[in-house]
């Protein structure tokens, strides 16, 4: 249960700096260092406290259904990396205290740093592949934050995004790889996966797994050709480079290969890919390190080169190579972190890190010079330092490699070349920075840094020397246990020593050193040679690629989504027609088993009228008034159709809806031009006609197909239950207010919202009443014809009476709230038209909005009332009362519901009308007004 404390502690450390910064910068640094220090102590305590061969493991459930557990392990490999991460992390915290300037937010930096540390600690202790992946992603995010710490600088932002994109892409590949492993093995548990070597390598998915996992590892560890993000990540503050880009994050990829080594390695595929990638990366990185002029640039490419070295060792894969790899990981972390920090000191004190501007620093910064030179010697792989030992081991393995058959010489050749170049760039680094006569004055006069800033470098360099002189020191238990965790089978014998006697590796080493010195002397010529090539800046290439991608997207989207409603409609209709047509084509026979009804002349006439109306509406759409008239023909015929097929209620509704709609449309048309300009080209007309015909044809065919098939519907229930269950003889009305009252409730809500929406749309609109129509004809002066006034006024009480009558009888005979509401609305509209809005509003002094709302509310409350009696929502009841004189009367609660409908319809309709009418009456026609 204690293992999760290690990442948890570092995670808690994220919040410490923000709290501690009030106490000053030193306090902040010390407080931040507490968490990793305690964690480091815990690690050692656990590790030394547990016995022998058992791997320490703890797991907590997180998402067991998906095989995701909060599982942690602590074995030799974790230990090695934990020491690096936490140990160097502590030094970095100390170093940062003096590195960051007053303007930089220290608490933010430390918070990001601790977040990153948590992620790294998580990666190396995860005992579950998915958990490992989670921390893996977290390193991408936190390094993104760290690299662009100086976020005001474009290079930092761009570099961070590039790093994030590349490692993020690798991360996704890794996720896919992990999922494939999970599919093959059946679990994401690390222990099980590590034991499933045979199962995985035998799987047909193995090549995919290898490629995906290695993509993740190579992007993270900056292997060729995914290395390009690393030099640009150097825009980060130097502590970040020292920590992320030498000791930890870039080693995450290496760690992954080590961790999964027992499960994935040992095949030809693995060896070929990993070894070759490693060797190529090594040579490539070393060559560019030799040519760079920026201190951190040299170190970045050198890091790429050394990571390549380690990778190639992992590819070779025998146990001796693994030992060499692990040993070199330690050594590289030691000398590279100290070099980065030294570069940071030089940058800090001299104001530049361009080697062309530096030189002769040994006089001004003697201690730093000594420290840097020792680390550089280690980097070059010269005796008697640690770098030399691991490089000797590397050469031994390279020379002994049996892979690639007849091409086996390629391995030592590339290894030697890489070694040679690294000697050269190390020499160049030291010479140009410290010993060459300065060509120009650096921006600041350099001097030694404060002691605590130099201390981490001193410590690391001391370790370099100690490990070089006493190489057996880290062997037990750190290295041995790490080897045990990565190499399956017997624990190999190994002995680390400076002097192995004269052997091929030593000869190669000596040749390499000699070659390196020569190359260094030829540096100027090499630079000249390099100038022939066009400089390739990965940033421009990457950004260019992104820009091109964005431009491509822009074009694609513009083509698809160009802002034209016609285009969208066309696409939607086309898709619909296509889908329906394809389905219809699949149908065996359009007509079903039912016979067709005999045609009678009236139906034919109706159909002809309907078609004519529809076609003319579209064809004459440019003449709006006529088009509207044709539309009303369609509506009318539909109403007649309902009447013909015994649906008087629907016919009545359709008729009144038609009347109201037409009036409103006419009112709207008043403000619009009478004619639409011709907009469509001939081709477009053809296209539109085709689409319209296709759509109509498809819908008609479907209808025909459906109607000619047998149907057993629920409608008989409604007919049977209308009287006994709903208390009404008019089935349609009973359906509306009772069986499906819930629908009606929704629909009147829609109506009320529509009224509200139109109210809002028109409220701010102010139009001037045109004096003439578009063709210059004056509108009639007789705005309120007397005849109409008289008729409408006489009609009003009658119409109200009729609507009341229709409302009341609705439950038993054609009628009901909806129709009654429309009739009332029509009568009032007529009044408005004949007398003008102002006259009418003076007399009908109330808002329509509340009426519509009251309607909705009334219906809702009727429904709610049934709850009071313990029935479901909207349950209706009815009873018969006997009143003297009048006789038997049936009262249904549905009637109240219907009343709500009535109110909503009247309110919404008149709300629309009143607003349309107000548009003009607010301003009397006066063309002179602005």
């Amino acid at each position, binding site marked *: 249960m204690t293992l999760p404390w290690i990442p948890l502690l570092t995670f808690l450390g994220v919040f410490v700096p923000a709290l501690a910064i009030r106490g000053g910068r030193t306090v902040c640094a010390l407080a931040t260092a507490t968490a990793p220090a305690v964690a480091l102590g815990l690690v050692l305590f656990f590790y030394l406290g547990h016995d022998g061969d058992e791997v320490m493991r703890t797991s907590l459930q997180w998402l067991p259904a998906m095989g995701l557990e909060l599982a942690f392990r602590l074995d030799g490999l974790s230990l090695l990396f934990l020491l690096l991460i936490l140990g160097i992390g502590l030094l970095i915290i100390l170093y940062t205290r003096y590195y960051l300037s007053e303007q930089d937010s220290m608490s933010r930096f430390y918070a990001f740093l601790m977040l990153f540390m948590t992620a790294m600690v998580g990666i190396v202790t995860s005992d579950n592949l998915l958990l490992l992946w989670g921390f893996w992603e977290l390193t991408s995010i936190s390094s993104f934050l760290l690299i662009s710490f100086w976020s005001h600088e474009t290079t930092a932002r761009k570099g961070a995004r590039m790093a994030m994109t590349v490692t993020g892409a690798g991360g996704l590949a890794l996720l896919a790889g992990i999922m494939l492993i999970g599919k093959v093995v059946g679990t994401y548990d690390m222990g099980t996966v590590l034991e499933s070597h045979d199962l995985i390598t035998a799987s047909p998915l193995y090549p995919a797994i290898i490629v995906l996992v290695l993509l993740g590892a190579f992007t993270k560890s900056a292997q060729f050709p995914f290395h390009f993000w690393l030099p640009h990540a150097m825009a980060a503050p130097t502590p970040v480079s020292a920590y992320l880009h030498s000791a930890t994050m870039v080693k995450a990829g290496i760690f992954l290969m080590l961790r999964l080594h027992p499960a994935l390695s040992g095949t030809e595929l693995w060896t070929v890919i990993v070894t070759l990638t490693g060797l190529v990366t090594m040579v490539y990185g070393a060559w560019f390190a030799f040519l760079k002029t920026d201190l951190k640039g040299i170190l970045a490419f050198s890091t790429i080169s050394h990571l390549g070295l380690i990778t190639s060792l992992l590819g070779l894969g025998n146990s001796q190579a693994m030992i060499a790899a692990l040993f070199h990981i330690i050594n590289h972390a030691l000398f590279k972190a100290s070099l980065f920090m030294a570069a940071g000191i030089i940058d800090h004190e001299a104001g530049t890190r361009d080697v062309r501007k530096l030189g002769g620093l040994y006089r001004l910064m003697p201690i730093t010079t000594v420290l840097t030179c020792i680390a550089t010697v280690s980097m070059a792989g010269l005796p008697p330092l640690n770098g030399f030992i691991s490089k000797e081991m590397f050469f031994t393995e390279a020379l002994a490699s049996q892979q690639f058959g007849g091409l086996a010489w390629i391995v030592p050749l590339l290894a030697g070349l890489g070694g040679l170049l690294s000697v050269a760039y190390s020499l160049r680094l030291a010479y140009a920075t410290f010993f060459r006569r300065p060509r120009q004055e650096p921006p600041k006069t350099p001097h030694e840094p404060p002691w605590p800033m130099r201390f981490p470098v001193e410590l690391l360099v001391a370790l370099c020397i100690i490990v070089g002189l006493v190489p057996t020191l880290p062997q037990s238990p750190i290295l041995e246990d790490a080897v045990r965790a990565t190499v399956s089978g017997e624990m190999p014998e190994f002995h680390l020593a400076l002097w192995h006697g004269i052997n091929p590796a030593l000869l190669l080493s000596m040749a390499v050193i000699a070659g390196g010195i020569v190359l260094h002397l030829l540096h100027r010529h090499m630079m000249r040679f390099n100038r022939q090539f066009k400089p390739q800046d990965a940033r421009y290439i990457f950004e260019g690629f992104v820009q091109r991608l964005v431009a491509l997207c822009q074009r694609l989207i513009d083509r698809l989504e160009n802002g034209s409603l016609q285009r969208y409609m066309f696409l939607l209709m086309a898709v619909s027609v296509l889908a329906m047509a394809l389905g219809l084509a699949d149908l065996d026979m359009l007509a079903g088993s039912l016979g067709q009804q005999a045609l009678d002349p009236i139906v034919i006439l109706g159909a002809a009228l309907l078609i004519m109306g529809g076609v003319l509406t579209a064809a004459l759409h440019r003449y709006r008034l006529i088009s509207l008239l044709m539309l009303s023909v369609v509506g009318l015929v539909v109403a007649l159709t309902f009447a013909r097929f015994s649906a008087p209620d629907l016919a009545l509704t359709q008729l009144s809806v038609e009347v109201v709609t037409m009036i409103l449309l006419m009112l709207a048309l008043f403000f619009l031009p009478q004619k639409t300009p011709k907009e469509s080209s001939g081709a477009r007309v053809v296209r539109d006609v085709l689409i319209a015909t296709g759509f109509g044809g498809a819908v008609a065919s479907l209808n025909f197909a459906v109607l000619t098939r047998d149907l057993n519907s629920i409608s008989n229930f409604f007919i049977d239950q209308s009287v006994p269950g709903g208390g009404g003889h008019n089935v349609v009305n009973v359906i509306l207010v009772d069986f499906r009252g819930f*629908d009606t409730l929704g629909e009147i809500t829609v109506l009320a919202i529509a009224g509200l929406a139109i109210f809002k749309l028109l409220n701010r609109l102010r139009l001037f009443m045109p004096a003439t129509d578009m063709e210059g004809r004056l509108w009639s002066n007789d705005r309120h014809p007397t005849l109409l006034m008289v008729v409408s006024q006489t009609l009003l009480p009658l119409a109200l009476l009729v609507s009341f009558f229709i409302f009341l009888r609705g439950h038993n005979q054609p009628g009901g709230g909806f129709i009654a509401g429309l009739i009332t609305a029509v009568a009032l509209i007529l009044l408005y038209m004949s007398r003008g809005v102002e006259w009418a509003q003076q007399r009908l002094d109330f808002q329509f909005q509340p009426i519509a709302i009251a309607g909705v509310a009334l219906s809702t409350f009727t429904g709610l009332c049934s709850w009071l009696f313990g029935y479901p929502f909207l349950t209706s009841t009815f009873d018969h009362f006997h009143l003297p004189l009048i006789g038997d009367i049936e009262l249904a609660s549905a009637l109240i519901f219907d009343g709500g409908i009535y109110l909503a319809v009247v309110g919404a309709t008149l709300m629309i009308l009143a607003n349309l009418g107000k548009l003009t009456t607010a301003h009397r026609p006066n063309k002179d007004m602005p």
Partner: protein
Amino acid sequence: MSPEVALPILIPLTAGALSMAFWRSRMMQRLIGVAGTAALLATSLWLFASVQEQGHVIMNAGGWAAPFGITLVADHLSAIMVLLTGIIGFAVAVYSLPTIGRGHETFGYYPLLHLLLAGVAGAFLTGDIFNLYVWFEVMLLASFALLILGGERAQMEGAIKYVTLNLLSSVIFLSAIGLLYGLVGTLNMADIARRVALVEDNTLIDIVAVMFMISFGIKAAAFPLFFWLPAAYHTPPVAVSALFAGLLTKVGVYALFRVFTLIFNQSVDFTHEILLWGAALTMLTGVLGAAAQFEFRRILSFHIVSQIGYMLMGLALFTPLALVGGVFYILHHIIVKTNLFLISGIVYRLKGTHDLKKLGGVYKAWPLLGVLFLIPALSLAGVPPLSGFFAKFVLIRASIEAGEITITVIALLVGLLTLYSMTKIWAEVFWKKAPDEDSAAKRVAPVSQRHLWLMILPIVGLAACTVFIGLNGQLLYDVAEASAAQLLDPQGYIDAVLGEQP
């Protein structure tokens, strides 16, 4: 009798009516706005709890037994969706207090908000296909009215496109309902599901299925039917965009989930294959479209489209695991997307623009806002341990297990592009220096602290939800699993609604 099924519809409906009754009092409207949505949230929790207990909670409106009346049915999926409606509704109502101006308030913002929520809840809870249409209409009109709040030219343009394309969707939907009724003679979804199996001619059912797919696809903004969304979502006040972004398209997705598990499960090879391609293309076009944008809300709008693709992918793969992933994705997405829109609103309020090129320096001035942005943004991109990771992970695992390589690759790639897109916003809005700090500062009226906190409060709440989902993945997974199990057991739904059939 279970009032909790109907209450999530009736509460906002009543609140809407009440709110309109207090037409002139802004104070009352605001009060009802918060109280009404809070009540909605409370009942949705109640409903969620009873569904956990009973599996299906059912009410026959009007007391008419199914299939004759209209049945309200809440299963796990509905309950989750209603709960999310409650959460989002409440968050948006609180956020509206400081952001919706006097003009909008007097033009009925709050009543419309309630009615929209009623429509959304109705669509989630109804067990009747025609009733679903009715609630779609309520939603459509309410959202249209909300879109034109303010009546600016860009809004009008977006709203006209929105309403036209959605009306086309309604037409197709209604035709499909008519045809379906013509084939099976019933409107209750459970009854339809029962009877569809008895129809001899499957081809006709398939055609109707595709019509439903197109109609709901338009609502859900799936490829190639999504055009109305990027045209409209960046125009209204931010609270409205946020509400739309969270809920509206998801109603379409919900309808697809419902119909294509319960009713149209006959020819999965045909229908769900179309869905799968639709999902893949939706994901890709959405994310590529986002890459080309430089307006905060337009980027987010295109990402909605892209994320819809993931949800459809869950439905299209049609395995238990994939459905779990789909439901999980919906659940996570609604919260995250709404939150991102709300954050864009604060940025707008502070900086006076949505244009990435003109924005900058927000992190320096308001670091907390930066952190609050990162949570939903990284979650959207699927970074562990946030909610989006689990959603994506389950889906991708499902697709790997189903052996669908293409969609797996696309889903992973889209994840990467989403991450890129989020870092673009982060870099442009939060990190880079504001291009013209002084002039921008002058233009924007200062925000009072009280207002700022009212705006941040819902964002913090939603971000907490995101983190909670991430840390308690198993809990939410169980919920999603239960709902997936129900979705894959249409017979259970039918039995629950119609009673055990002999």
